[in-house]
């Protein structure tokens, strides 16, 4: 009796104990889970959430800007800056100096840093935004502002003058840096970082040039040359969609997807223009059109003399690398003695184009692309064009890639010739003291091309079929050397 009741009681007790344990397990499990969920949902709060939690006592030190503020990072950065500056100086010198040397405009025999120190003022990170726009990628936008006091002195040597130290003063950089992290399954989990400056808002890099113990006018068009070198380095290397791909060590991955590649071919026929503005006192304007997707690879039509309704009917082929963000830009100029005047310009975003459909478009010319700066609403005329966008398939893309490699080789050779040729130009223009800014700028484009390829083979991919090199010669006779890629070989045309 005692045994049985003992067993029964024991069993009941044992089962009860287990049931209790199970209950405890469930209770604790639930509690932990609830906490996990709470912590998780509190890790990214927005304004409404916080309002709901805090109710009336919404803390006034909290705001929710698009770019999240990082005061702590700025504090650390300003403390760390002297050390970063010290460490970065050597690296900048090493990496930028060959680039400068490559980009060096003709007429300048050497371009080096004679002094480079980044100063005591640290850049400020205005905000950081993290997005995941694509599977396996993290996009981080950093709003960076730097009104620093760096001391950068460039030693500019020219054929005619020994060496002028040029100081870059009052450097100010306002830009949004986009860093895309490509994720991987191995530690450190990031296989590559893509860095670019966002095109919208446009990066602003301001500085003033000052000659130390000399005059800027010693070399004609020098400040234009330097400005153009800086702009072309920035817009054609760093500004989105151009990018720098940095593979993170340790993981062998294919980063070619991240690099900028040709995605399509744009066949543009500049048909005609009508109702252009007359810019000349005697006679009418002598219009021609310059069009480009990337500023480095510009093509231009012939000049039609004395005509406000010119018909060109010229066909061009341009390569697009990023249909989403790139645009085709037309600029109509009036050929003139000295500087050519701009008659109007218009932008055609590539995203508006449908692939494989030929389309005739009439575009209204504007005085300037920047809508904020347009003052008058006067009609500038209409440009009629025909466009056909062809999207590359895999093979064509590969072929274009191969062709590009050959192009780069050809450009390298051309650069050497170009330098020899254009140094003469520079001497010429220095002697006659008529240095056209545009000419000088275009010279950089020509000679810089090889540099782009060689200096940046790791930094990004460069495409372009057609290069126009202009050199401003005295007496207004503009000589054009157009290098057109035909069947993969570079030919020289003199127009």
């Amino acid at each position: 009796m005692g045994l049985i009741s003992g067993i029964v009681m024991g069993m009941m007790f044992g089962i009860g104990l287990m049931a209790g344990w199970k209950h405890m397990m469930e209770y604790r499990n639930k509690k932990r889970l609830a906490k996990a969920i709470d912590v998780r949902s509190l890790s990214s709060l927005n304004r409404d959430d916080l309002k709901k939690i805090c109710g009336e006592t919404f803390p006034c030190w909290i705001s929710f800007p698009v770019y999240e503020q990082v005061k702590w990072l700025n504090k650390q950065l300003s403390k760390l800056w002297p050390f970063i500056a010290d460490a970065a100086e050597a690296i900048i010198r090493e990496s930028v100096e060959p680039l400068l040397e490559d980009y060096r405009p003709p007429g300048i025999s050497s371009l080096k840093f004679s002094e480079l120190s980044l100063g005591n003022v640290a850049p400020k990170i205005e905000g950081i935004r993290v997005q995941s726009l694509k599977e396996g990628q993290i996009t981080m936008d950093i709003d960076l502002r730097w009104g620093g006091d760096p001391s950068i002195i460039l030693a500019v040597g020219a054929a005619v003058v020994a060496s002028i130290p040029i100081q870059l003063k009052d450097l100010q950089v306002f830009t949004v840096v986009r860093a895309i992290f490509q994720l991987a399954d191995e530690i450190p989990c990031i296989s590559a970082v893509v860095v670019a400056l966002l095109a919208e808002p446009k990066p602003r890099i301001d500085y003033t040039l000052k000659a130390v113990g000399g005059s800027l006018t010693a070399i004609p068009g020098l400040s234009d040359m330097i400005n153009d070198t800086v702009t072309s380095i920035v817009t054609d290397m760093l500004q989105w969609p151009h990018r720098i791909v940095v593979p993170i060590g340790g993981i062998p991955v294919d980063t070619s997807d991240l690099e900028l590649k040709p995605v399509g071919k744009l066949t543009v026929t500049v048909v005609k223009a009508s109702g252009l503005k007359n810019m000349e006192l005697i006679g009418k304007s002598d219009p021609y059109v310059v069009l480009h997707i990337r500023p480095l690879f510009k093509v231009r039509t012939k000049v039609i003399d004395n005509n406000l309704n010119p018909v060109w009917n010229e066909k061009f082929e341009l390569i697009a690398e990023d249909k989403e963000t790139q645009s085709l830009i037309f600029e109509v100029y009036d050929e003139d003695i000295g500087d050519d005047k701009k008659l109007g310009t218009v932008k055609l975003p590539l995203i508006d184009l449908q692939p494989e459909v030929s389309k005739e478009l009439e575009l209204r010319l504007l005085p300037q692309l920047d809508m904020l700066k347009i003052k008058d609403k006067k009609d500038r005329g209409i440009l009629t064009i025909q466009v056909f966008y062809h999207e590359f398939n895999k093979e064509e893309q590969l072929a274009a890639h191969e062709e590009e490699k050959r192009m780069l080789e050809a450009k390298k050779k051309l650069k050497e010739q170009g330098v020899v040729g254009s140094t003469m130009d520079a001497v010429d223009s220095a002697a006659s003291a008529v240095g056209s800014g545009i000419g000088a700028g275009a010279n950089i484009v020509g000679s810089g091309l090889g540099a782009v390829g060689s200096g940046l083979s790791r930094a990004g991919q460069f495409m372009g079929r057609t290069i126009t090199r202009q050199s401003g010669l005295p007496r207004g006779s503009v000589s054009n050397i157009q290098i057109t890629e035909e069947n993969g070989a570079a030919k020289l045309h003199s127009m």
Partner: protein
Amino acid sequence: MGFLSVILGFCGFGVGISTGMVLGYYLFIYFQPCDVKDPVIRPLVEQDSQSLLRLLPEIPLWVKNPDYDRIDWLNKFLEVMWPYLDKAICKTAKNIATPIIAEQIPKYKIESVEFETLTLGSLPPTFQGMKVYLTEEKELIMEPSLKWAGNPNVIIAVKAFGLKATVQVVDLQVFAQPRITLKPLVPSFPCFAKILVSLMEKPHVDFGLKLAGADLMSIPGLYRFVQELIKDQVANMYLWPKTLEVQILDPTKAMKKPVGILHVKVLRALKLRKKDLLGASDPYVKLKLTETKAPSKKTTVKHKNLNPEWNEEFSMVVKDPETQALELHVYDWEQIGKHEKMGMNVVPLKELPPDEPKNMTLDLLKTIDPSDVQNDKLRGQIVVELTYKPFKEEDLPKDIENPSAVQKAPEGTPPGGGVLVVTVHEAQDVEGKHHTNPYVRIIFRGEERKTKQIKKSRDPRWEEEFTFMLEEPPLKDKLHVEVLSTSTRIGLLHPKETLGYVDISLADVISNKRINEKFHLIDSKNGRIQIELQWQTS
């Protein structure tokens, strides 16, 4: 009889309880699923006030405290990265654990131990605020508030004597407030040499530990005990001021401290090429070490001599013998105009045997580029004797371990006395009426020292050190620190200006041995200067 039945009852109870427990185990626990589900997260706005109330203790610190910064962008970053991190960490953990297990199991007669599942779950760690502290020392201090309430699932299967047992760890939760100190800061990337981590409070740790499906941690009392045990263990190791140290860079290298001295004896040059139109050249030699900012050294000028004999000796401080090189330039001295280059050569220091004089006869080149055609021309030769003397171990400064510690005074210090070391670091917001080219003048007992001048800077950095040898502690003395500015233009108008001054009483320095502070400047609007003072005694 009653006694027997009681005994039997107890026995029955004993048997019953074990059967009951086994039954209950199979009834309630064994069939419980042991996989971990992803929790469903509802947006906060949809939740009722009850669950919101439960949230209150977990409100992130950045909401509560204005001195904490929100780092939700980092949370987002982690969130996207987490699946990849999870895979990577688990893979690495398995790779590390497998050989260790393989080595250990024969000792315990266990057949095999393996991970049945290993995942860190879908919930990433979150940072609920970040606080940074600014000090005058060369260090960065930050305190993130880290909360990881994850849903990892780790099942370890142990096989022994033909039986299989599983141990499962679920729902790991770690809340901690680590203090991360990066120091010392060094001028080469990543700009710090060490990471020090210590915990400011005992961390909160919670998890479920399932042995054969039953969660041991839910036995009342046991959880608390285990939690306390873990907390104490961790606290013993890492609770502030105890730290976990991770070395990133070798501080000696990173700090670019001198490691040796190079003695250069410029003996002579042979068959130099004539450069002057009239008469022979006037050669002299310029010596420079690469990667240093130290000024180059020059020999005397030997007038009208193409085979000059100098026999002059120089010594230079070497910081990195692996990468540095000695550059020798021969110039032609001119009374007027630019000194013309006669040739150059470079000797990498790694080619020199330590502590051994080496005689070298070097061809003079136009440039260092070996492919330069102009190098084929004969420019003459230069003969030098180079000796590289690396510092012995005991010569090396030992303050690397703790840069803020006060060093011993050097030998020769009078007993009872010591050395006062004044380091002028930097100043902020100094501004002159007419010009701001600040330099610092230090006056101590009539002795005057000056830093170099920094041109056009409101926030100058000098980083200069001055030492004063003293017979006795300067208990009653004051140190006068003055920021001055001189005009860069030559002119009588406003040649010199005082941007502010401060008098520092040295008694505090003697008692504290070391003071590193920002002082507000007197006679200045908003200027501050950072001065470090050390009293070194033997």
